[in-house]
């Protein structure tokens, strides 16, 4: 029991379970799943589906945060990748793989710019990625020539609204990305190097780790994840809005990683717990809708619940709570 409580996955999972159970209380059919037209339907599926963009961002963000950095530009990269994809489709490019590839390349380039600024020039991550966070929206506006670019393309739209093996495509994309990135960092020693750099960059250099290269790599992966999220978001609404696509999602992504138990100071990370963090955020949003809470309260309640989750994860806070409880007895 004790070791279960101390496992780093316990609190994020417990928070998710509590929020989901609250939903069950509010609407009894919340856990109901239905198989129709070769696809799963149900509130749970909806939660995962709608969490997919933030969860994708959180995967890349986990690695960036593990090196002691942060990537504020991911929301803007969503807008850029979306603008690239939408304009290619409008311009008559029909091959979905080509569109996806070019959108991903855009994200990779954005990531390499961030990585170069942080890893090679040594600029503070928050400043370096702030550049692209601001400039990125401008770039997306330029690509879109100041318009909201909409398109009609069923093949591409399927990436946002279609299904694969009974799962909504965004969920499938999320799962595949999670597995691939997990293999990339844990199947190799990259994950160990990332954690080493996050805990002690100086000692990492002393054992021969190329700290700059590791940082470039994590920002590149984060850029790719952001581009994927951008593809999903753009396909979902069949249009690219440079001003609003992915707006503030970088903050949700950072929050997801933190709810997943990672420290912003860098070090240990867990990709799947970060995804759980993204699910917590989305499940909470869904609860507020189902619960019929007036929309004006949403942001406030969201912050309060998140503060509670984060406090519960903090060992000193739990100790104080325990001391209070035993003191009263």
């Amino acid at each position, binding site marked *: 029991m004790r070791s279960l409580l101390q496992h780093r996955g316990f609190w994020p999972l417990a928070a998710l379970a509590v929020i989901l159970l609250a939903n069950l209380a509010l609407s009894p059919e919340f856990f109901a799943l239905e198989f129709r037209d070769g696809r799963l339907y149900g509130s749970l599926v909806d939660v995962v589906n709608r969490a997919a963009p933030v969860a994708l961002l959180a995967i890349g963000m986990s690695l960036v945060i593990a090196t002691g950095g942060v990537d504020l530009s991911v929301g803007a990269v969503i807008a850029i990748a979306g603008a690239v994809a939408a304009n290619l489709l409008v311009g008559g490019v029909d091959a979905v793989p080509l569109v996806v590839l070019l959108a991903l390349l855009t994200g990779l380039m954005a990531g390499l710019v961030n990585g170069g600024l942080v890893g090679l020039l040594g600029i503070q991550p928050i400043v370096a990625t702030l550049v692209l966070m601001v400039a990125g929206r401008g770039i997306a506006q330029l690509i879109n020539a100041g318009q909201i670019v909409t398109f009609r393309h069923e093949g591409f739209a399927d990436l946002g609204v279609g299904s694969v093996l009974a799962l909504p495509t965004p969920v499938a994309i999320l799962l595949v990305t999670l597995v691939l990135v997990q293999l990339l960092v844990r199947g190799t*020693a990259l994950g160990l190097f990332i954690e080493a750099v996050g805990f002690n960059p100086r000692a990492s250099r*002393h*054992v021969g780790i190329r700290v700059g290269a590791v940082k470039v790599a994590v920002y590149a992966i984060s850029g790719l994840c952001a581009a994927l999220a951008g593809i999903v978001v753009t396909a979902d609404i069949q249009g690219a809005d440079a001003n609003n696509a992915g707006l503030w999602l970088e903050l949700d992504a950072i929050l997801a990683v933190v709810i997943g138990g990672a420290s912003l100071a860098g070090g240990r990370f867990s990709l799947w717990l970060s995804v759980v963090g993204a699910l917590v955020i989305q499940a909470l949003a869904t609860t507020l809708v189902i619960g019929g809470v007036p929309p004006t309260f949403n942001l406030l309640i969201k912050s309060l619940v998140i503060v509670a989750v984060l406090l519960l994860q903090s060992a000193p806070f739990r100790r104080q709570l325990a001391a209070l409880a035993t003191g009263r007895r």
Partner: protein
Amino acid sequence: MSAPAAVLELRGVSKRFPGAQALDRVDFELAAGEVHALLGENGAGKSTLIKLLTGVYPADGGEILLDGRPIRPSGPAEALALGISPVYQEVNLLANLSVAHNLYLGREPRRFGGIRWRQLNTDATRLLARFGLDLDVRRSLGSFPIAVQQLVAIARGVDCSARVLVLDEPTASLDAAEVKMLFGVVAELRRSGTAIVFVTHFLDQVYAISDRITVLRNGARVGTWDAAALARPALVAAMLGRELEAVEQARSVHAAGSRQLPVLRVSDLAADNGLASASFAIDAGETLGLAGLLGAGRTELCETLFGLARQTGGAIAFRDREQRVASPAAAMRLRFALCPEDRKASGIIGPLSIRENIVIALQVRRGWWRRLPESEQARLAGEAIRRLGIVCPDAETPVEALSGGNQQRAILARWLCTEPCLLVLDEPTRGIDVGAHAAIIALIRELCSRGLAVIVASSEIEELVAVSDRVLVLREGRGIATIEGPAVTEPAIFRAIAEAS
């Protein structure tokens, strides 16, 4: 010495931590105007005793008497108010504030709620003058060397009207001249009646300044002696609980080694970190000692060899081929290894497990895409733990939980996994207790006998004499003398350093 009334007395003090009896009914007595050395290996209970004194923890049993009245300091602030003032090895002051502000932090002279900066600075200058320090008190504390910061911390402690000054390893990062300066201050304080507890692992310093010595072992008091009446071997025996031959062992005769081409030949090496010119040659199975005062360039030479500085002149020839060592990765390709001086900042990756800390260098050499299988990592770590005698619950414990000596062993293990040709050890025994010290010296000798070339930089001449075939004496970044073979003796090295300066 005559026995004046005790200022501070501990009677049967005990402290228990989960899983360990840190202190078991310890008595300790401190008189006014005495320097009382508190000695023991790591884990003997020195830090716990100090933390009880300074109110960091409450004692489980026994009592603490100050001037015969029992006290129970509930925190460092209360202990300070009672006149018990600690100075730690790591300076606990604020590096970004001025020296003067640090001295009067929390008790600044004020007028109308504002700080009177001019008076603050005058007071600070006057206070430091008493300690023989003349410096610009308006500069930030962090811009001064550690030694000065330490003296500032002591000045602050004393000025807070300390009756009992606790010096916890104050000299660990000081060079000989600075130690002398510190001891001058301590002697002055003793004359003025301050009672001083002195914790250190430098036995020379114990004898240089202490009046009495109390030795702890495994949480219990072994005994208290007048320093003058306790011979050094007896002291070491008291600390270790056994006669440790290795410590007092005469220098062993080194294997001559096959006299072929030297493995490494360095000529006129210079780098942008202050290394001006160093030349030496070292062969497989040999140990080269690097001697010199603090700042003489020992660490700089070690770092340059390992690619941590930019080479600006001279040549490094390895196996008769000239090499440029531009990065640690390049050094590792030549099978060089460096155990750095600052173990915490540059050596261990604290929160990672012992296993991860041990395998990481080998993993870097294999490349990130060829991950060492889990089973192989466990085998390497287990073997290293056994072979080097790392004391730990298991290989998954975070390395930061280990004692200094065991951390140093883990870093040694990290490099031994990579099967190096040249092992550079910068201050391998700094901050390590006597037992581990001897073990590490024995290990260096063993590695050497197996054909490794070893470079040891150390501020402890005794240690250099014990391990070196040849000693390079450095000063101001230059190699100024090389002492070889039977001529490697403590007096010879001292002479070389002294002649140079």
